[in-house]
């Protein structure tokens, strides 16, 4: 019914696995994101500022690199910590849940962290002073107010996992566990012309699932909104921190260990395999910097660095800027068109990259033909890459910002309007400072995956269009695993360094260029 070479039973099995995987990841990252966001913003956990920045880092690691690293760690034959896994090692459903959750955790975490920071802490303090225990405060005060960003964050985690490809391909396919995206991929890969059709048909199925989840989450958030529950942003009072008391030490240690397991361990694993002369050789006496040198001296490396930086910075800024205005129009001005647009950008976000790339190749061919009739030629792959990145990732910022606008009580805006403020002044003096943390988080969540995007890039690139993703693909396919690990390690280290630098600065300072 769907495709040649694949039975309906296989399609339904993949569908069921896709849904259960996404659900598991959304639940785990929702709970973990909530917990960590609360710990770093509301408790006296040790090193909270450092942790707050560091916990957003797993997102900086493209999932396929994380998959690579975890295969080094949990390889059933030679993995460094294979004893911690069942017989099949990291391969299988548990491995996919683990790795996807590490990445998808960032959506609810960053949303809730921004939510907590935006929320007037005096509400919680009032509850505490009336004698409520921290759990009660969270349940009765914080949670009801932070519903929309939490549901939205979990929804993004769900959609992210549903459309993710790298991890299911690396950790699921070797043990014959297919999800929809990997099925679609194999259709495109070896289906000839019929395969394109079958791939699209399966994508529609995936899309239907995604739309269902989006509709459900919108309904939930809508119900919440009608019950009231906006919070005024207040940057005057600093939250009084909840004292963890005797639990402070173990909780702090647990948080740092969790961070180490999520980021430092894979980082170490990649460094380890980048130093090996051949994949799998593990004696330190053999260690070599040859792979690093090879990667740094690749002619495409510099081109890719420039392209990826330019693409991710400019496209992310445009997309977040547009999202800021769009969400304003939708939430504060009640524009139906804007609200509809925010819904609509959920479609490309939950469409597999391969499908978007194929559609853009169609568009590129038509454009080239039209320009050709005018006697022009147009070969820049960067335009199509920018378009692909923009389309694929614009949902994150639009949805995050819409949720943030909803969370803030409109009284400030009303006061400004009464005083005669224009829309520009309103955005500049009220909304941008109020939402600065969300804007920054959204920019981060948009720019990082663009910097290392692989699936769409390998199809859309061309001469002069090398990106980090295409160089990685090339190393993986045509060089060897240690060289690919070397580039992966370089990328990861750069991302970690960037996050370390950002950690010390307040979001407002960065946004206002101070």
């Amino acid at each position, binding site marked *: 019914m769907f495709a040649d070479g694949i039975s309906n039973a296989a399609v339904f099995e993949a569908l069921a696995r896709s849904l259960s995987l996404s659900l598991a990841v959304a639940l785990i990252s929702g709970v973990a994101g909530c917990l960590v966001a609360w710990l770093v913003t509301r408790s006296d956990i040790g090193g909270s500022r450092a942790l707050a920045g560091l916990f957003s880092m797993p997102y900086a690691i493209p999932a396929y690199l994380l998959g690579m690293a975890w295969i080094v760690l949990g390889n059933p034959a030679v993995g460094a910590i294979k004893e911690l896994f069942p017989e099949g090692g990291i391969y299988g459903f548990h491995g996919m849940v683990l790795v996807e959750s590490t990445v998808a955790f960032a959506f609810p975490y960053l949303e809730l962290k921004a939510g907590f920071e935006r929320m007037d802490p005096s509400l919680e303090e009032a509850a505490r002073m009336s004698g409520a225990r921290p759990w009660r405060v969270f349940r009765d005060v914080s949670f009801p107010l932070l519903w929309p960003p939490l549901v939205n964050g979990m929804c993004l985690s769900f959609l992210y996992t549903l459309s993710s490809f790298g991890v299911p391909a690396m950790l699921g396919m070797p043990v014959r566990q297919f999800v929809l995206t990997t099925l679609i991929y194999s259709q495109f890969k070896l289906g000839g012309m019929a395969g394109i059709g079958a791939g699209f048909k399966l994508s529609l199925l995936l899309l239907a699932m995604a739309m269902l989840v989006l509709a459900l989450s919108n309904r939930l958030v809508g119900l919440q909104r009608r019950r009231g529950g906006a919070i005024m942003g207040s940057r005057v009072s600093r939250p009084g921190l909840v004292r963890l008391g005797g639990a402070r030490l173990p909780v702090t240690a647990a948080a740092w260990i969790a961070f180490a397991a999520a980021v430092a361990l894979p980082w170490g694993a990649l460094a380890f395999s980048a130093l090996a002369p051949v994949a799998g050789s593990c004696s330190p006496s053999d260690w070599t910097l040859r792979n690093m040198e090879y990667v740094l001296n690749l002619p495409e490396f510099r081109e890719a660095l420039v392209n990826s930086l330019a693409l991710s910075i*400019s496209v992310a800024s445009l997309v977040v800027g547009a999202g800021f205005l769009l969400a304003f129009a939708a939430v504060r001005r009640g524009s139906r068109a804007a609200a509809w647009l925010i819904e609509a950008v959920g479609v490309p976000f939950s469409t597999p990259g391969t499908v978007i790339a194929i559609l853009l190749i169609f568009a590129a061919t038509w454009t080239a033909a039209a320009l050709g009739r005018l006697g022009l030629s147009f070969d820049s792959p960067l335009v199509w890459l920018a378009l692909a990145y923009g389309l694929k990732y614009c949902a994150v910022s639009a949805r995050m910002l819409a949720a943030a606008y909803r969370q803030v009580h409109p009284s400030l805006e009303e006061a400004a309007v009464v005083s005669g403020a224009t829309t520009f002044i309103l955005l500049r003096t009220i909304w941008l400072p109020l939402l600065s943390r969300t804007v920054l988080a959204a920019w981060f969540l948009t720019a990082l995956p663009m910097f290392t995007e692989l699936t769409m890039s390998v199809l859309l690139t061309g001469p002069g269009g090398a990106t980090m993703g295409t160089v990685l693909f090339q190393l993986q396919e045509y060089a060897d695993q240690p060289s690919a690990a070397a580039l992966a390690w370089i990328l990861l280290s750069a991302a970690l360094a960037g996050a370390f630098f950002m950690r010390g600065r307040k979001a407002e300072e960065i946004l206002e260029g101070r």
Partner: protein
Amino acid sequence: MRKPTTLLLLVIAAGILSLPSCSGKKKIWIYTSIYKEVIETMREPLQKAMPPDVEVMWFQSGSENIASKVNAELAAGAARADLILTSDPFWYHELKDQGRLLPYKSDAAKDIPAIYVDPDGAYAGVRLPVMVIGYNSRYFTNDSELPKSWKDLADPRFKRLISMPNPLESGSSFTAVALLQKQYGWDYFEKLRANDVIAAGGNSSVVTRMETRERPVGILLLENVLKAWDKGSPVRPIYPSDGTIPVLSPIAILRDSRNPELARKAYDWFFTDEAQRAIVRGSMYSLVETAPSPDHALPYAELKKTMMPWSAEILERMFAERGAIKSKFSETVLR
């Protein structure tokens, strides 16, 4: 008031990005799955062989990525590629069936054995990758433990030792599956399944699995083994006694080519000594019998003796059964 400045800069950056690259030169687009390193050695000589007002543009990716890209371009109206050089013979056959290829019976390809050339001139083999068995020489201490043939791999002593590329993703792997099931039937793949074979990713992931000893034995392209060997990897090839598997890798001109004359010129160049030497340096066999064999590889004359039979009819038959072979493989091995 830094924000408007930043915004302006961003708009300018976006503008620069979207500037189309215009140049007056005629362009010849080559889409190929040949290694980047090999392309680097071909780039200059081919450019020199073309008229000065022509710019040769290369797009390099995996065979299947190129097929996806060209298929999408064709479905949208016209392919940008003038020439294609990948290693999925079935795709060429499909393109020919649809009338997408420009027939060209070139004199330059006259030394290529007839079995590797399309009788109607739609495409011709320009190099010959072969599928062999690979193994990690540090894992096996005794040569008698090694598999000698494809048939050996079905033996229970290789349980959990074997991996192969996924034939739903890789054209070379599909050729191997098609020829092996023709020789041994699906029973053979049932035994491989019982041995818990991993069929995932491409040829490079098989190398990694061998090197890490996750799966010390692999079914893969010889060129991947030779390249790894060259870099100091303990991976070595075995030429199975029941036949190495030829993976025809043709060159063809697309009918949509805007400069068919130039495309023919470039097509011819790939059969010159210069081009064929570059192919051999890239660890692939040349189809020109007088050409040397790649370093560390079995001489072509030897290889030919144990090669599985190949012909236009076999290609035709396997092409017709393509969907059936894929579904049968999915059912047998991937479930």
